[in-house]
């Protein structure tokens, strides 16, 4: 039995080493995706194009505008003469937000209730933001300007206010989203490459006519399945190494947990993804079909696994679907280990689930693969 599995592993590795394109993809996919996601996905919006309607045009208002620009949240690109003009600009998409400062801005500022020692204060804010709320990230970023302190602009001391809560942030003090993305990207890239490789594995042999010979030999289905998986486990580890080291070097992602824990979690996930690919491979008739089924698995793995959106924010039904995907469990594990120094033992539910998934997957693939043509 081991001899035959070994024979298939050697054969797969030889074929893989001769397929330059696939070989290149093994290295390039993680690197390129890491760059793309690392640099492009950023939930802290910066330098949003904004417009300005300044009806007061006072020294105070100009100081305020400078202070707003200094936050780097918005860049004032345009000035408008009226609110109506500004609204039209938002509708056209010229700007994402408009700061409206009324003619009585100075009066509103000095009598703002946030200053200490006010006797006759106004309850009105000093100005107004008109925001294109269709993009929720943009809207919430502008909203963060709502509480901008006004003391330096007006040159007055603030009333000391006690916040309702004190918030202490663990594990990502600078709130950089790339820190959360890199360990998640491990899951996405491994899902993509691992499922893709094995989903083509059996179908390719069938399409190229190798299968008809292979099934007249004494090889057993389980031997064939294991032989097909083992080489790609190695490939998976190469990719994990690339993503984690590049993430660490380029994006300064801390690796807090032990490398043994990461390796173990990655191993479980790689095996689960590979068996998922094998099951696909026993169902698909052509390589194109196997590709389509891979995408069918890949999209929810990106969108529902917690990679893009927090798992907790999804409706219960979506959470159930997410639970079925190996990527969700791995996303949880890799973030916990890489960012929060968790051990695999702390995450035994996810670990056990992936082991179960692999065993059942292998069983299904071996049962579905019959050494017959009818």
């Amino acid at each position, binding site marked *: 039995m081991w001899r035959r599995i070994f024979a298939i592993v050697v054969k797969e590795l030889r074929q893989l080493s001769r397929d330059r394109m696939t070989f290149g993809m093994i290295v390039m996919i993680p690197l390129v995706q890491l760059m793309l996601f690392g640099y492009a996905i950023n939930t802290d919006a910066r330098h949003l194009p904004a417009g300005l309607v300044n009806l007061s045009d006072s020294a105070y208002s100009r100081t305020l505008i400078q202070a707003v620009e200094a936050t780097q949240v918005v860049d004032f690109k345009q000035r408008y003469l009226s609110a109506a003009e500004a609204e039209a600009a938002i509708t056209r998409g010229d700007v994402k937000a408009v700061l409206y400062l009324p003619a009585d801005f100075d009066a509103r500022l000095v009598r703002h209730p946030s200053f200490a020692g006010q006797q006759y204060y106004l309850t009105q804010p000093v100005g107004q933001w008109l925001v294109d709320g269709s993009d929720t990230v943009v809207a919430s970023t502008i909203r963060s300007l709502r509480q901008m302190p006004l003391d330096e602009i007006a040159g007055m001391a603030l009333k000391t206010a006690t916040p309702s809560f004190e918030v202490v942030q663990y594990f990502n003090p600078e709130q950089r989203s790339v820190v959360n993305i890199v360990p998640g990207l491990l899951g996405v890239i491994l899902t993509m490459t691992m499922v893709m490789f094995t989903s083509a594995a059996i179908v390719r042999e069938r399409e190229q006519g190798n299968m008809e010979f292979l*099934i007249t030999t004494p090889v057993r289905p389980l031997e064939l399945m294991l032989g097909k998986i083992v080489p790609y486990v190695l490939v998976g580890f190469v990719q994990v190494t690339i993503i984690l080291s590049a993430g660490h070097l380029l994006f300064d992602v801390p690796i807090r947990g032990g490398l043994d824990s990461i390796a173990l979690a990655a191993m479980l996930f790689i095996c689960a993804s590979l068996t998922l690919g094998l099951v696909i491979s026993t169902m698909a008739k052509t390589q194109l079909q196997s590709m389509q089924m891979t995408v069918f698995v890949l999209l929810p793995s990106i969108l529902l696994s917690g990679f893009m959106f927090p798992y907790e924010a999804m409706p219960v039904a979506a959470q159930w679907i997410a639970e079925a995907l190996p990527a969700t469990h791995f996303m949880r594990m890799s973030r916990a280990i890489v960012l929060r120094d968790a051990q695999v033992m702390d995450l035994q539910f996810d670990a056990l689930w992936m082991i179960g998934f692999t065993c059942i997957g292998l069983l299904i693939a071996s049962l579905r693969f019959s050494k*017959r043509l009818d």
Partner: protein
Amino acid sequence: MSQTDFAIQTQGMTRAFGGINAVENLDLAIPKGTIYGFLGPNGCGKSTSIRMLTGLLSPTSGNIRVLGEILPGAEEKLRRRIGYMTQKFSLYDNLSVRENLEFVAQIYGLTRRQSQQRLAELLTLYDLVGREKQMAGSMSGGQRQRLALAAATLHHPELLFLDEPTSAVDPENRREFWERLFDLCAQGTTILVSTHYMDEAERCHGLAILERGIKRADGSPQQLMAAMGARVIEVSGDDLRTLKQSLISESAVLSAAQIGSRLRVLVRSDIADPLAWLKPRIANRAMEEVRASLEDVFVTCTGERLAAHAKEASHVA
């Protein structure tokens, strides 16, 4: 002959695909140590029959006994005793000759030493020495076919199935290939080969002519030719196309086919004297009776359309 003298026995072997019988009521009794041929055009059920006999397809009905084992049921037991060379090259294009054979040897469970020894034998036997490192995908049709035969016989099978083994091979390599088959046969291997070439079929010890899944005739090529039920007259002269048209409308003429400057006419054997019968019908052209060929057998069994098809195929090669 007793049961153990047969490598393959079937009764009423039938396989339907979506209500259409690809193979219908096929009875076979193939003695051990012989080369047996399936002759027929593409789509006549040759491959389907071979797949049922190798245990890759289950029969819709009928009994199959291969090397004494009953199919379906004993497939895995038979795997080590049978060899199968598929119609399409089924080894790996991006592995070398040696790597392909090593892979097959390991799959059949040979130890490293056994496999080295067997590989050396096979490389010499099939004239692949010096090509060990060549990728299978870059070899010629004849070389690939020798490699495929080496792989199919690596484990010394008692029964070897060859599905149109020579369809991608030139005539010289084909002759050589058959020499190797006779060598195997002399060592006691039973061989079942499917083909659509008459010259190949003529080399077999026994033969079944298949058409649309039905066996039209079987026996040795000599028996088939003797029992054909028609006599063969070759007519030579001018304007054979017109003559052909007029002759094939006669019910006593089974077929008339032009071969170069002659017209080969098959006349039903219930006409006592075919030369006298033909004389008034061919004007003053010359004629002579010739020996029947397997192609004539094929034509009488299956009808002219299929013979034309088979001939076309053999000309292409």
